[in-house]
């Protein structure tokens, strides 16, 4: 076996290096394999110039070259001899492109091309992808491939978070078609195959089916607008709303319309001068005749179910129904409430009632005696010393009330003065307000309790075997004893309130829920509920009653008087003083308190109001003791406040140390009292 012989030659270009090597080895070109190690570089003004470097390896037996082996080698069967040939001419003579093949011209026998691919061109020599430059011979199969850019359509569908809308945008990208071309690399005389852009390819129009396919993938099925999909296809780059859900339409609750207007009729009465009032005319404003329709109930309407774009059903809250709540003198015929006797219609304590009207033509005195009437009482004169008037409806006095007692289920209107008397309006409504407060709080707490139960039951360290065995009572009791001790506290207060009430007539819905509640949780907080579902049902029932009680707001009873002195006034609604004001009196209002008279003074006493207080003068220049209390969120307004006036808002107190004008007392955001 012969030895392997190799030389590495450096020269100005590859061909001269090869020739030199062949001379050194004293062999023919077909007896060596040639490897280009480095290509030559011209450099600039002598800088960066690099010589070509080739390695020539002599085959094992140079004297008897194997024919097959020779063929495998990237050699041409001719010699390099002409170095003077201009390189430009050379490459044109050497290679040409025929379809995807690069051919070497056989006629040229004195030049070996080195070729390299440019960007977007793949060069294959004998089916191997070549990245660097390569020396090729006529035996090589040289193929080029252009990396054409395909046109592209992007279909983009976005939906809104509420799942009610989907938008389509089509983005189109043009493709590019290349063609391989041969150029000479002027740097080193090599042959470069480059991609030449010959044309752009317009992307095809997006097929409607493609969009539908995409919609299907995204599960968008409802409210698809094909017209807009087509528009989006026509106008790439623009966004179109292509699917839209249908929102559910709300249900219409049952509604009762009352055909009499309490507010207006009251106004009319008080505006008329006392002397000229004819009580029959008062009655005609306020009253109805037997058989008259008092109210109409309008049917509920079920809303329409909606769908989002994913075809998911959007539920509709069922409409709420209202039950008639009727008291004396009213009968329901079909969808109408009809008066069964003459009298004044009113909604008192949630019930539509006809109040018969009792008119005292003169004073309430010895000849008349005390009055206790189931209905309204109108006194044309005064209520005299030591007499009392009780009415389940309203009481109206056109004269004065002195050293007397008035109690009404409805409003109390006193045209002139109330002196040394006690006046109570709206009895039950005050209770109901409190009931509402407690029950509403219970609903909130029960909801929290239910959540806490679910939270515990799903906790990995909380075992529920005892609940499965003995029911959920145990866990409810546990929470009542721990986190929700407030529930038994509220129940205790609520039960006490109800026990007070039970002597009087109590609304039957409320009564029912109280019985229910007492059966489930005792006033000591002892739970008799076995299952969570019982708790949920109980909570819903309480909530229903709350909704009924809530509506009582509009018929709380008010007290109106001209002037007050040494008296006690309690109203479930507003207290309104029309003339001079009040001296040394205690006022207690479930609503607001307003002193409407020009003087409108409050000189001495206590005011407790659940609403705002508007007064001209609070206190007196002499510093009489005045205390005013409103809950958080309400305000006290006075044109003038004197020394010694104390204003309490929530649990904050402010005392006036000097006279101030035009003050508004409120609580600021931080819970501190502010006087401006």
């Amino acid at each position: 076996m012969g030895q392997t012989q190799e030389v590495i030659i450096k020269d100005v270009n590859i061909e001269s290096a090869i020739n030199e090597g062949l001379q050194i080895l004293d062999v023919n070109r077909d007896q060596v394999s040639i490897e280009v190690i480095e290509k030559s570089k011209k450099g600039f003004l002598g800088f960066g110039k690099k010589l070509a470097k080739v390695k020539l390896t002599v085959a094992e037996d140079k004297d008897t070259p194997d024919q097959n082996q020779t063929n495998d080698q990237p050699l041409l069967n001719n010699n390099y001899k002409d170095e003077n040939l201009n390189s430009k001419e050379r490459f044109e003579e050497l290679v040409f492109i025929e379809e995807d093949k690069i051919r070497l011209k056989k006629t040229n026998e004195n030049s070996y091309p080195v070729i390299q691919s440019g960007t977007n061109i793949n060069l294959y020599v004998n089916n191997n992808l070549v990245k660097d430059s390569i020396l090729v011979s006529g035996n090589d199969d040289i193929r080029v491939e252009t990396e054409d850019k395909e046109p592209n359509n992007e279909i983009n569908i976005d939906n809104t978070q509420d799942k009610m809308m989907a938008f389509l945008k089509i983005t189109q990208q043009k493709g590019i078609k290349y063609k391989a071309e041969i150029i000479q690399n002027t740097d080193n005389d090599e042959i470069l195959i480059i991609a030449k852009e010959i044309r752009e390819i317009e992307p095809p129009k997006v097929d409607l089916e493609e969009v539908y396919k995409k919609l299907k993938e995204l599960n968008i099925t409802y409210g698809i607008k094909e017209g807009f999909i087509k528009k989006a296809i026509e106008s790439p780059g623009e966004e179109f709303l292509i699917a839209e859900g249908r929102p559910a339409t709300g249900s219409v609750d049952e509604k009762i319309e009352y055909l009499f207007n309490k507010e207006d009729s009251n106004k009319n009465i008080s505006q008329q001068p006392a002397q000229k009032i004819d009580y029959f005319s008062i009655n005609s404003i306020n009253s109805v005749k037997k058989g008259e329709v008092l109210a109409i109930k309008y049917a509920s309407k079920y809303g329409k179910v909606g769908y989002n774009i994913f075809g998911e059903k959007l539920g509709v809250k069922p409409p709420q129904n209202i039950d008639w709540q009727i008291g004396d003198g009213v009968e329901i015929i079909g969808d109408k409430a009809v008066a069964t006797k003459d009298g004044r219609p009113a909604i008192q304590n949630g019930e539509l009632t006809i109040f018969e009207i009792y008119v005292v033509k003169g004073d309430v005195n010895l000849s008349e005696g005390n009055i206790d009437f189931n209905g309204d009482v109108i006194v044309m004169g005064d209520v005299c010393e030591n007499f009392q008037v009780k009415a389940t409806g309203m009481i109206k006095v056109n004269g004065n009330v002195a050293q007397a007692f008035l109690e009404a289920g409805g409003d109390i209107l006193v045209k002139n003065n109330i002196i040394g008397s006690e006046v109570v309006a709206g009895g039950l409504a005050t209770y109901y307000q409190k009931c509402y407060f407690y029950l509403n709080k219970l609903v909130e707490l029960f909801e929290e309790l239910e959540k806490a139960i679910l939270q515990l039951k799903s906790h990995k360290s909380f075992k529920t075997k005892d609940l499965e065995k003995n029911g959920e009572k145990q866990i409810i009791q546990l929470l009542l004893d721990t986190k929700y001790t407030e529930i038994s506290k509220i129940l205790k207060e609520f039960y006490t309130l109800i026990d007070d009430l039970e002597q009087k007539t109590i609304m039957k819905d409320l009564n029912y829920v109280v019985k229910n509640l007492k059966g489930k949780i005792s006033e000591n907080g002892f739970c008799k509920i076995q299952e969570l579902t019982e708790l949920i049902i109980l909570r819903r029932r309480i909530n229903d009653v709350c909704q009924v009680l809530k509506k009582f707001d509009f018929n709380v009873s008010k007290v109106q008087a001209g002037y007050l002195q040494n008296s006690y006034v309690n109203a479930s609604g507003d207290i309104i003083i029309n003339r001079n004001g009040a001296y040394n009196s205690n006022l207690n209002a479930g609503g607001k308190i307003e002193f409407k008279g020009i003087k409108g003074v409050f000189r001495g006493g206590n005011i407790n109001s659940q609403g705002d207080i508007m007064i001209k003068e609070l206190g007196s220049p002499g510093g009489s003791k005045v205390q005013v209390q409103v809950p958080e969120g309400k305000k006290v307004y006075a044109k003038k406040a004197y020394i010694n006036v104390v204003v309490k808002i929530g649990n904050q107190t402010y005392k006036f140390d000097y006279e101030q004008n035009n003050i508004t007392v409120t609580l600021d955001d931080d819970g501190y009292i502010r006087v401006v």
Partner: protein
Amino acid sequence: MMMVILELFNERVITLEIKCKYKNEIAILRLTGELDMATVDSLVEKVLDIKENYLKIIFDFSGIKFVDSTGVGKMIKLFQDHDEINYVISNLQPDVKDIFDILNLKEILGESMFKECNEDALSYLLS
């Protein structure tokens, strides 16, 4: 040492292991296992037993991984019925602490009743 083993539904053995240690006038009950319907009575019994001699008790909860409403309920009842005893719960594991937080026990029983470790519990009961 006392061991409660109950075979329930022939499926699982439910246990609560109570190890007692006494230091000065304090009893430390190291609890391991589950505080539940099946085991809480044994704990209550144990407390009533040692209450004759010890009125300061530490419940070391480091080995309690599970509780149920009966277990926690009866334990709270024990605290309330026998408030002559000074109780401290120590080494609550995170999951059980979670449950105690949901029940608001810190507020109901008092924050001072919960200590991170037995050392804190001891120094609290000794002070």
